[in-house]
């Protein structure tokens, strides 16, 4: 059973359409990344499934049922910013969150230790640094060891050590069998932490699936010839390639890493009656892949 199913979700803010018919589902036990540039609708998606935002149309189900306060209590959620009472200490804030989630206080010390905030638990939230606020918000998510966690930009404001710690924590939670839904604009973060990914761009779902299928690293070979059409035709039968992309007077051929052999391509084209006037190998970075996905 999927933990979360989103069907044809749309959301408008006046004339701005923040989400357009987005559908995806999050299988149990995955780390599901929602990836997209700023303003692509990541937080809007998460805000909707936590009942903070009302969708314009579409439906969503949590644990196979329409969402309710009860289902929200079973999920640890950090949405957008750490939201706490500024005048209360970290520990007092967690007491309130624990009460609302209907857990006792007994878990508070453990979660504070997990995020390394024990030393500052009695300081007012308003005195916390950005990174400490973020840690407290993550601690609050962990209260009661929920089986599902929603993290919106979880490493926001953290220093490099903090970022590494939080990513390690997410991997640990994943190994414990928990489902994590995470929004991020950091491609590298999604690639390192997530098992599944949905890519959003201007409110539209571009692609969703396994990370190693969607964000696989590839090598790219650029070729060109006088007879562009003929070249395109013969390349379609080239071995080992992943796909061929026609880019104006250039043709891009994508290969799994290390599988591109320039001399082989050259002789293949020549044997099929096309003489190349351009042939270069370009390693494609993950970023380039991401731009490619979000630009088409």
């Amino acid at each position, binding site marked *: 059973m999927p933990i979360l199913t989103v069907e044809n979700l749309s959301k408008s803010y006046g004339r701005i359409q923040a989400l357009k018919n987005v559908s995806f589902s999050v299988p149990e036990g995955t780390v599901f990344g929602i990836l997209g540039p700023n303003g692509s609708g990541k937080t809007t998606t998460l805000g909707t499934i936590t009942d903070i*935002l009302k969708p314009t149309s579409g439906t969503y189900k949590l644990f196979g049922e329409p969402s309710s306060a009860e289902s929200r209590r079973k999920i640890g959620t950090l949405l957008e910013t750490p939201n706490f009472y500024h005048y209360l200490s970290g520990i007092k804030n967690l007491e309130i969150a624990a009460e609302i989630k209907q857990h006792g206080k007994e878990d508070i010390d453990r979660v504070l230790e997990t995020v390394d905030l024990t030393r500052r638990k009695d300081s007012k939230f308003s005195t916390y640094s950005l990174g400490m606020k973020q840690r407290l918000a993550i601690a609050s998510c962990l209260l009661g060891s929920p089986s599902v966690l929603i993290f919106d930009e979880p490493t926001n404001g953290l220093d490099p050590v903090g970022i590494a710690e939080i990513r390690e924590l997410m991997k640990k939670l994943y190994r414990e069998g928990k489902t994590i839904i995470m929004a991020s604009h950091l491609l590298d973060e999604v690639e390192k932490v997530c098992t599944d990914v949905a890519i959003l761009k201007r409110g539209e779902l571009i692609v969703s699936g396994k990370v190693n299928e969607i964000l696989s690293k590839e090598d790219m070979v650029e070729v060109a010839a006088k007879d562009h059409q003929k070249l395109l035709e013969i390349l379609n039968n080239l071995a080992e390639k992943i796909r061929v992309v026609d880019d104006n007077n250039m043709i891009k051929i994508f290969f799994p890493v290390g599988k591109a052999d320039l001399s082989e391509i050259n002789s293949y084209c020549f044997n099929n009656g096309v003489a190349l006037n351009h042939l270069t190998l370009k390693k494609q970075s993950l970023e380039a892949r991401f731009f490619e996905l979000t630009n088409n």
Partner: protein
Amino acid sequence: MLHLLKIEWLKVKNYKAFWIFIILYLFAILGINYIGFYINEVAVESMPASKVILGTPYAFPKVWQTVGFMSSWLLYFPGILFIMLLTNEFNFKTHRQNIIDGWTRQQFITVKFVFALLFSLAATVFNFLVALLFGLITTGSHFSFAGMENVIYIFIQTVAYITFAMFLAILFRKSGAAIAVFFLYGLIFEWLITLLVNMKFNLSPIGYFLPLQVTDVMLPIPFGNKVIYKDAPDVWIMVIASLVYIAGYYFFAIKKFTKEDL
């Protein structure tokens, strides 16, 4: 509901500003009544004839109404306090977090209103004690339950002011805007509208049915009210109108909070 109130209590228990506000408010109730009490004594002493007009405002049974009237000027205090409690939630986005963590939107609003009712109850008890105190120290005054219905009016008026302030806080979401409108409306514009409607356009008693005015008419100035509210409807009508307003604020808040994005 008890569990919800416990959480609401956790929110204010260690909130210093909340307690300072309350202490100032309680001292102010004592203070404003002492001012009234003292001025009345001085006036009667220096000009015994004034007793004809003033009567014995701080003696039983009039004291219940007098304290209610005097304290009503301070109701902007708890009003601001509740505007702060609500706009704090909006500023800190904790209204979102409470829902995310597992409250329903109705629960968030309902517990705030119930908390306001309990606060009003406590304020009413304090007013009762203050009235008792001044009634007992007034020479020649003997304890009497007569006029005790005014204590109920104090409660209704306190609830009406606080829930009106909460209504503004939910409407504007910003403490500055809510407080400014609360003061300007309550101290200037409502009086102006009442004056225009009742006097200038001769539509009395319609002007008495404005949100705060309607409760002020329940607890009029303890002397000379035949002049100020000479054509006011019966008190029970004002009580019902006040309750309708309070229920209205609650339903508006629920409707706005459950239908909109947070």
